[in-house]
């Protein structure tokens, strides 16, 4: 093996290690929505090992996810090679995970932003898509608190102006 090959292998190894440990959920799905990759974040939060989920469809593993609805989101990613986004404001979560801070966190579950991105093969087709799951709990909690405060402030102003 040449020096370059060894270096590339090393880089590949690093990349895999980072995908495994990055604090973002990474899942690769095929056209049947069968799970091909399930990283450390997904493993920790779902409590399911990669060996338990690989080859199974998203919908049999998580019956709460509406297949028709999800397929509609994913379709343009497969067909048009565009990205699709779901934000926590649309729906708080796709996977019902616990809050990262179970003791001091104020919300019971994790708010999530989801990105679906195409994985283009060498032939130019998209047979697989990647799904990234971001923890938005802190942002959501902050925003909800701020809104509650604004409502309270408006009510208070009305009350004062009436007196």
């Amino acid at each position, binding site marked *: 093996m040449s020096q370059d090959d060894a270096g590339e292998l090393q880089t590949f190894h690093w990349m895999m290690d980072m995908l495994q*440990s990055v*604090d973002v959920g990474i899942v690769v799905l095929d056209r049947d929505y069968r799970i091909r990759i399930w990283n*450390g*974040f997904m*493993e*920790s*939060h*779902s*409590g*399911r*090992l990669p060996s338990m989920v690989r080859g199974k469809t998203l919908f049999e593993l998580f019956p709460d996810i509406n297949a028709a609805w999800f397929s509609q989101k994913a379709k343009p990613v497969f067909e048009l090679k565009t990205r699709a986004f779901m934000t926590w404001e649309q729906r708080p979560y796709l996977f019902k995970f*616990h*809050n*990262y*801070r*179970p*003791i*001091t*966190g*104020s919300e*019971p579950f994790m708010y999530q932003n989801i990105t679906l991105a195409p994985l283009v093969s060498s032939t130019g087709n998209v047979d697989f898509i990647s799904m990234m799951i971001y*923890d938005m709990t*802190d942002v959501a909690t902050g925003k909800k608190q701020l809104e509650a405060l604004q409502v309270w402030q408006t009510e208070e102003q009305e009350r004062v102006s009436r007196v």
Partner: protein
Amino acid sequence: MRGVEVSQMYSVLVCDDSLVARKQVAKCLPQDWPVSVHFARHGEEALDLLQQGKGDLLLLDLNMPVLDGYETLKAIREFGFPTRTIVISGDIQPAALERVTSLGAIDFIHKPVRPDALQEALKRHGIFSPQSSSEETDCSELDPKVRDCYQEIANIAMGQAGDHLARIMNVFVQLPIPNVNLIEVSEMHMMLTDIDSHERVSAVCQGFVGPGIRGEALCILSDSSFDDVAKIFNVQQDVDDQVQLELLMDAASILIGTCLEGLAQQMDVKFSQGHPVVLGQHQAITEITSVTSKRWRKTLAIEISYGLEGYDVHCDLIMLFTEDSMATMNAKLAHLLEE
């Protein structure tokens, strides 16, 4: 004004370097005993309070920084303070018992303290007898075997963490026995408000999660430690708020990271760690616990107090696990729980 003197409340002084242990001891005092309770973090603080006339009864831990239990007992005898001392310690060597009784302690109770053991001792020495037989309330429902097992893995994890610290910072790390307790929301609240009201500490918390196990690590550093921590980390500039925060984060990352790694290895799991969060001082604390109290009642707490020899550094690391994590933990540790 004789009445005032007569009605002055009996004072109980609890001296322990561990926050959880102090609360635990205070909670184990008889419910129907009208006393004022004072706290000291080490022998020197206890002596100060005794000087002020506090502490008709002293509940004393042995392993503490600054001034340990033995030295405290000696000093009490020298000064002739009229206090009665019951030692509460995890050190179960017979020599320890002999030593403390020869130094004037009237009794010795093993840690973790239980209400019935403390009441028994109070009764034995005619300090307090309950009017009616109060119902048995356990400080903790943790099976002793399970507790020992958690304590053991915490010990190993802590030892590894201490070793890493010692190598990185070139210091000698003092390792106490970790405290393992099931604590309730109310106690957690007390602990956090304690952090809040005490201006002298800063705290960071970090969530962690693995398959079936989740929790939070809480790292509490006393503000008096910062100058010495800066020395250890070789910080040349002035230690302002910004630098303090940085030091806190650095210390917390090392302590939480190594301890968590040690626990994960022994349970054969991998934990994901969230981003650390500085526990706010104003609204956050009370709000935090008022909201969460709806969701959980009990949490498993492993508390470790680190000290560094030759430095005035005091740091508490508290690993909190949700109650539902314990089933997985016990399964993972089954090989240790079996005879």
